[in-house]
């Protein structure tokens, strides 16, 4: 089925590219406003990032970024439709126009940013590749993994980074690749592979899905840089700016102390000039982006600022319990830093 979908995505990409006329800047935003919703590509089930709940609603930080974009454009965070994609079909779905924005824990690399007709708009989550091992193996560090069998998801930067790490440290390994993260997790549980490797956030998410999470430990090493962020098509600067500044708005809101609880009140009563500019009380910064004046108010009111979204999906109250770490604001020891709205 997934093969069928990815083949269909490629064939439709070929057909669309074959018969469509040349795209021009602004086409995506116009099309979205005409159809009335944002088509968002997410993963096929990664807790914390994009996973369907019992009623089929997609929860997660990637999904919330898409909802924030919808809130900015339409003033309504529910005007989003989600497409669940595996690692192989995600880029062709975006290239062919099947989705408008790919928010699917995708690593920002030069080849993806330059050679595929796509552009990354920012970093939702700074991550790195790690290893999830069964405690029974008695392994304390990744350097002890010589000769291990490793489960990897096919077609990801993880495959390349793991291979580089093992070569650099003169270690041998056998890779077993799967299409979906669920299949890799199942193989880890059955013992087909000794170790599961992926972005560390995914490892925490996968561990929470296993039958006995306490039996597995995430090894301390982080072997690569994996900045995960949303992606849009090249040649569409208006849409690119909107998606980019949506994320920056969420970061700026957290930095300024604007939360979903106080945003409406602050938008009318604030005396802080930064907050006033951010919330549209002062200046026409929304218009520059072709967005309504209260775009940040809608984002924060309906979805939340970056900190709230992080806590809700990945924070202490969730089974994942991931530390802010690198993803804290620059004022709190992390590296999340947004340019100012002015």
């Amino acid at each position, binding site marked *: 089925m997934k093969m069928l979908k990815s083949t269909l995505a490629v064939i439709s990409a070929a057909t669309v590219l074959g018969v469509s006329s040349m795209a021009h800047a602004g086409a995506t935003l116009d099309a979205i406003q005409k159809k009335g919703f944002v088509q968002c590509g997410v993963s096929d089930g990664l807790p914390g990032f994009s996973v369907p709940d019992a009623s089929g609603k997609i929860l997660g930080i990637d999904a919330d970024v898409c909802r924030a974009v919808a809130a900015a454009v339409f003033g309504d965070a529910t005007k989003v439709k989600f497409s669940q994609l595996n690692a192989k079909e995600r880029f062709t779905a975006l290239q062919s126009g099947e989705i408008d924005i790919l928010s699917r824990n995708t690593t920002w690399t030069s080849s993806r940013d330059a050679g595929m007709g796509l552009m990354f708009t920012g970093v939702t989550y700074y991550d790195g590749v790690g290893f999830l091992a069964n405690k029974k193996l008695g392994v304390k560090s990744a350097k002890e993994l010589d000769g291990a069998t490793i489960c990897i998801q096919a077609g990801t930067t993880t*495959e390349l980074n793991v291979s580089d790490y093992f070569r650099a440290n003169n270690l041998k390994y056998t890779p077993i690749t799967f299409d979906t993260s669920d299949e890799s997790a199942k193989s880890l549980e059955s013992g087909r592979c000794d170790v599961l490797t992926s972005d560390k956030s995914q490892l925490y998410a996968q561990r929470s899905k296993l039958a006995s999470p306490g039996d597995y430990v995430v090894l301390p090493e982080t072997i690569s840089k994996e900045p995960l962020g949303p992606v849009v098509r090249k040649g569409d600067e208006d849409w690119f700016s909107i998606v980019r500044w949506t994320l920056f708005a969420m970061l700026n809101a957290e930095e300024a102390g604007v939360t979903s609880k106080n945003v409406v009140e602050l938008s009318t009563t604030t005396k802080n000039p930064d907050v006033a500019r951010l919330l549209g009380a002062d200046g026409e910064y929304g218009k520059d982006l072709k967005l309504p004046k209260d775009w940040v108010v809608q984002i924060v009111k309906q979805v939340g600022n970056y900190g709230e979204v992080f806590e809700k999906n990945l924070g202490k109250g969730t089974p994942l319990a991931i530390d802010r770490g690198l993803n804290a604001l620059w004022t709190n020891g992390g590296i999340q830093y947004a340019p100012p709205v002015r």
Partner: protein
Amino acid sequence: MQKPIGAPKKGFSLSDPRVRGWVFQVITIAAVVALGWFLFDNTQTNLQHRGITSGFGFLDRSAGFGIAQHLIDYTESDTYARVFVIGLLNTLLVTVIGLVLATLLGFILGVARLSSNWMINKLATVYVETFRNIPPLLQILFWYFAVFLNLPGPRAAHGLFDMFYFSSRGLNMPAAIPAAGAWPFVIAVVVAIVAIVLMSRWATKRFEETGVPFHKFWAGLALLIVIPALSALLFGPPVHWEFAELKGFNFVGGWVLIPELLALTLALTIYTAAFIAEIVRSGIKSVSHGQTEAARSLGLRNGPTLRKVIIPQALRVIIPPLTSQYLNLAKNSSLAAGIGYPEMVSLFAGTVLNQTGQAIEVIAITMSVYLVISISISLLMNWYNKRIALIER
């Protein structure tokens, strides 16, 4: 003088059906070519405009990822072109093994279904009905997830003579490393095969001329064993065995058949054999019963009747649908992507496609390769069909 009706008129006239015929053919060809050129040109322009790289230059880039099973040497710094070849070899491996095993099993089952022994008959029927009706992907997933992955881990593997280990990491066996006597052994095998062919031709000729039978099979087997054995005695053993040992996480040394390969081959063999059984059964039934009666009246028993009278005639009915089943098996091998077996679709049209983003080129190459494999199988089977075709009077 009256011109006969339908005679070609002089000159170019559209009312002449022959002229009309080829005018329309030319127009159609021109339209198809124009459409093809338009699609190609438009695709190129759009790809360029959107900044998506195109062209086949990516095949020279270094791959950078590991592969679980590679029949030729491979390191992570090899090119994508080499990855393609490895995927192709893995696909062909599964296809060839699957074809051979499925044909054998299918023929046995087909004949079993016609047996007068009630038990054998019913068992074969149950087999065919069960495995024909379950989708192949489900069968592959069953064998892989429910059977092979549930075997004990390498540290608790079942060992046979301390040489063969069966675990969830696959079937580990001693590796045959060519030693001093390797080349003489190979030459000896070739000599033995030539000897067998010559002996068999001589025996057939003598049988046709004088009717004196000859045990071709046993003589051939003896030749195949004695000649290479002589070479091993004279020049030394052809291989020395490297045994698999459990070290740390895994078995080190020796050869391993990964469970993905075993599950895929097993599932495809069992699935395709069910179809081949029915084809064989229909082929045998298509031979008129008069042939069996005539053979009986000549004193031939069941075995020779089947082998020398029925099956040669049944083959004409069996070969065309058998070709289709072979093509199905070759294409069903692409279902391996579901269990992570590194064959062409999962390696090339999966990982490489995702790493380079050049979907159109990669899928075009993959489709062409499958087309070539399928056409080769068809051509081979058609040639065989022509060769054994009955010359009817």
